[in-house]
């Protein structure tokens, strides 16, 4: 029995079986027992995370499924983030008397898709993973289907996601046509001496498809609308685990499949990173909605993560992993604060509504301040260390012009994070609108605590783990 858990695909099997069992169970017990389903979902994801961190490494299904250190690191993070997402989302829905048992099941299916993505060993499993995850996310975006905005967000996400899938598949077909294989290992051998124009074209299509998933500019257009329209806990989920999964997949496709074309994809990724910096930093300046603001923030931050991959070194991959993990913690905690705040039954999701928050909810204001400073990249908060890793790797790989661009972008972006702080601490509260109410937010407080003192301890563990994971591709 225990040997089964040691199997390289054991986590995926656990989640798949659990999801398939919980779905009919939920249908029988109904939404009234959604709390139970959510609890079980969390348990399953935590268990899957433990298994993913300890099971045997290996390659299955003729190389279509790869469970290596890189994948294991990502899976643990993804499963834990998904578990937190269920916890947060269930609480949020419960406060609105809108608990649904499909919610945890959908998250689990998305987690399964992400798990497939990070373990994808060929282009078909890549596509299956991406689609499984995406379909779950489309549904989650439109989860509150009575709300016009949420439905609109889900539909936009779906249509544009379909377009990106088309682009991705077109790239896959080109790659298959020019290299003669779908397996990363074979493709890698085919382009070892340098890729031809056709293969590079296919690669660019593939990159564009993946860039959509991580919401890198110029494939970011869906992000602000979906972030604004979709229910907040769903957005909190979108912003964290799927981004990491897509980045890991990105890294695997580039480093395991197209190492021979590094000169080309590195340049393309740098362009994408640069555009993301600009769009993310500048676009956020005029936003009034915090969720929209965080959408632009995530665009800019994905730029930094892509910069890590563009470095093309082991250090760069390590930087990407560290960056994504720290960013996930920050952004989840950020959304947790937003979810916890309410006024007149409405979420306080505009910057205006945070005016004078320090008087009404000093604790929340402090947490939000810490998180803002962290995302801004202020030392000694975790966001600083995240960027530090990336810039160090980028400069180490000789990409200092783009690193400088990233620094400038983070200076511009500092404006909107600082504005949140300024509004909370120095503006007069919006008094007549009624008192604000706050839900429990220990996740947010834990995130804030992590972003300053705990991060130093965490980095002590995270740094070698990420380095070990990044060593999976044998880069220098």
């Amino acid at each position, binding site marked *: 029995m225990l040997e089964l858990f040691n199997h390289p695909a054991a986590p995926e099997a656990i989640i798949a079986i659990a999801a398939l069992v919980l779905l009919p169970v939920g249908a029988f017990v109904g939404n009234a027992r959604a709390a139970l389903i959510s609890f079980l979902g969390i348990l399953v994801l935590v268990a899957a995370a433990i298994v993913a961190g300890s099971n045997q490494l290996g390659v299955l299904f003729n190389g279509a499924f790869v469970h290596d250190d890189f994948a294991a690191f990502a899976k643990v993070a993804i499963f834990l983030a998904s578990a937190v997402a269920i916890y947060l989302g269930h609480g949020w829905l419960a406060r609105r008397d809108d608990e649904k048992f499909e919610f945890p099941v959908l998250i689990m299916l998305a987690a399964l898709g992400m798990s497939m993505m990070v373990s994808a060993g060929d282009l078909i499993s890549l596509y299956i993973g991406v689609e499984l995850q995406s379909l779950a996310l489309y549904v989650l975006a439109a989860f509150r289907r009575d709300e016009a905005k949420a439905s609109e967000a889900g539909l936009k996400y779906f249509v*544009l996601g379909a377009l990106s899938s088309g682009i991705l598949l077109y790239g896959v077909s080109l790659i298959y046509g020019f290299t003669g294989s779908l397996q990363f290992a074979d493709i890698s051998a085919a382009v070892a001496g340098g890729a031809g*124009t056709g293969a590079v074209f296919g690669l660019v299509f593939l990159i*564009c498809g993946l860039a959509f998933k991580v919401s890198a500019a110029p*494939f970011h257009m869906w992000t602000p609308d979906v972030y604004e329209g979709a229910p907040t806990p769903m957005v909190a989920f979108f912003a964290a685990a799927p981004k990491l999964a897509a980045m890991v997949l990105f890294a695997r496709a580039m480093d395991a499949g197209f190492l021979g074309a590094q000169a080309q994809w590195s340049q393309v990724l740098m362009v994408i990173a640069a555009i993301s910096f600009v769009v993310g930093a500048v676009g956020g300046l005029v936003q009034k909605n915090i969720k929209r603001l965080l959408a632009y923030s995530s665009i800019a931050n994905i730029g930094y993560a892509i910069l890590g991959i563009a470095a093309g070194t082991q250090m760069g991959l390590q930087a990407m992993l560290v960056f994504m993990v720290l960013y996930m913690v920050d952004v989840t905690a950020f959304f947790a604060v937003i979810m916890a705040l309410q006024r007149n039954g409405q979420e306080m999701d505009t910057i205006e509504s945070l005016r004078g928050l320090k008087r009404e909810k000093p604790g929340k204001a402090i947490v939000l301040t810490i998180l803002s400073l962290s995302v801004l990249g202020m030392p000694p908060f975790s966001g600083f260390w995240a960027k530090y890793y990336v810039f160090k790797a980028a400069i180490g790989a000789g990409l200092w012009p783009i690193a400088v661009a990233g620094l400038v972008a983070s200076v511009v972006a500092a404006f909107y994070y600082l504005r949140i702080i300024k509004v909370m601490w120095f503006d007069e509260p919006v008094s007549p609108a009624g008192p604000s109410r706050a839900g429990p937010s220990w996740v947010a407080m834990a995130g804030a605590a992590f972003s300053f003192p705990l991060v130093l301890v965490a980095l002590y563990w995270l740094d070698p783990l990420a380095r070990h994971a990044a060593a999976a591709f044998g880069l220098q």
Partner: protein
Amino acid sequence: MVNLETLLVLAVFGPLVGAIVAGLFGKRIGNVPSQTVTTGLLFLSCAISWYAFARHTWGGQERFVVELLPFIQIGDFMSTWSIRFDALSATMLIVVTTVSALVHLYSWGYMADDPGKPRFFAYLSLFTFAMLALVTANDFMQLFFGWEGVGLASYLLIGFWFHKATANAASIKAFVVNRVGDFGFALGIFTVFAMFGTIRFDELFPLIPSMAGKTWHFIGQDWSALNLAGFLLFVGACGKSAQFFLHTWLPDAMEGPTPVSALIHAATMVTAGVYMVCLLSPLYEHALIARDIVCITGAVTSLFAATVGLAQNDIKRVIAYSTCSQLGYMFFAAGVGAYDAAMFHLFTHAAFKALLFLGAGSVIVGMHHEQDMRGMGGLRKYMPLTFAAMTIGTIAITGLGWPGVGGFAGFYSKDAIIEAAYAAGQHNNAGMFAFWIGVIVAGLTAYYSWRLAFMTFEGSKKWAHGHAHVADDHASHAQIESHSEPDASHDDHGHGHHGVDEHHPPKESPAPILIPLFVLSVAAIAAGFVFAPYFLGEHQADYWRGAIYGIGGEGAHAAGEHHEHPPQWVVFAPLVVSVLGLLFAAWFYLVKEGLAKRLADNGGPLHSFFYNKWFFDELYDFVFVKGAKAIGDAFKWADKNLIDRLGPDGFAWSSLFSAGRLSRIQSGYVYHYAFVMLLGVAGLLTFAFWLVS
């Protein structure tokens, strides 16, 4: 018998202790204890100095250096806190401590009604310490420390009445002008270190002859290294000793309390430049171009300041310009190689100039802080002792005396300088220039000094009929001029803010003011004939013992160069012109009283030129103050319109502008989004194609 070295340490650091006690604890221990401590330590210091001076002059005490502590040590650069005792420092020690001790005592009376007494005495003692550190320095570093220390104390004391705007402006002006000089001084020290690798005087001086004629190539030209060093160091001396071009701060420094003017801006600090040039005589003797520059600058200063002094009406300003002029004498004496005469003039000048200043202070107290001489007159009857002291000081400064017989202090030193200039002028044009200017200035000195005495003590009592402050209609705007000190006493006296009138005639000053006047009067009479044999005469070689280049040291060849007897007309020229000056002053201010005022009111161009100090303040205001402002404005404009507009502001603006554009593209329509995505794909494909090909 206590060791002389220990005593000297005590003499130098005693004033520092006094300054610390009065400065830090003055408020707690009260006025009288603070004053007692500082004054007592100063008199102790003074006694030790005289003892040391006597040991040197009559006891055959050899030159020695006490090394106290290492100060700075970086590589080859080494500086040590030390006390150097030789003829020069012995001379300076008695000058500084004596005047300082008397000024401390005098301040008991002068500052009696001032609320900030502990602070004042602390500053005075701090100044004295810095000055003693300066004169006993054995290397350039300590010299510079003392130099800056006296500069600081001077700044603090000029601005002592900090609630007076003019005092603050004057203190800042003094500080800023001195920065210019100190910049040159520091460069000079760097030059010396770069050339010789040492800044210790006793190591440096033997090396100098080997460097004569060495040149440095800089900006396409060869520069004589020694001349360059000499010139740069002299720039420092110019700043501190208020020589031409850097003199503008000294008259304004009269905004400080009068005892400060006497101590710092007449007797001691301003002579530091002269002292340094004399100390560095081995260098200047091998840097003849620099020496000529010293000579000409000194001569021009003495003429300039004397002419300005003719037209001033503020009693302290007249004496300030007189100081400036006398410093010019000392410099041109050094510039013609008569370092001994320069030092002797420094010595005697300290006595009679401190006397004049303290006497003026006594008059100011008597007149209830009125400084304009046009409001005085006829004071002889009311302040007879002050009158006697001032008259002695005036005789001393004008150098009255019969050649071959004797006279007051100034007679010996000034005649020695003029004769030395004449001797040097036989083979040096700069010397001849200095000689003629020296003679002319002797006449001018007599005129303005007697004018001061007559306007103050003789003639009609202008103060008797109401107290109308004479309007200063043609004073320039750039100069700082207030003509009065803050009268801290008027509240206590019960006769309002009015100074003196017929019912409240001026009174003679109290004892603490008169005692120093008496002591200094004796010095002004006797310093000349008592010490002339040692400084200049037959005991000269034994006195200097090599402290001044060529006198009494190993290379005693140059001695006697200026001892050849000059022609009789040269010897009598100073006497004749100073008597002429006296007669002119008497004509204008005694016989035809009011004539000078009428002439001044007619405002001839020459009077206006002198009255406005050759328009130096205007020139500097225009060139430096306005110029700096214009440059500042230009930079401000550039900062706002170029750097800010293209930099932070422009960046912020373009960020916001692009943000607006971006949010317009973010239209909400799916087909727009899809279009952007496809554009992105097309763009990246093009880029990749360009990369591959």
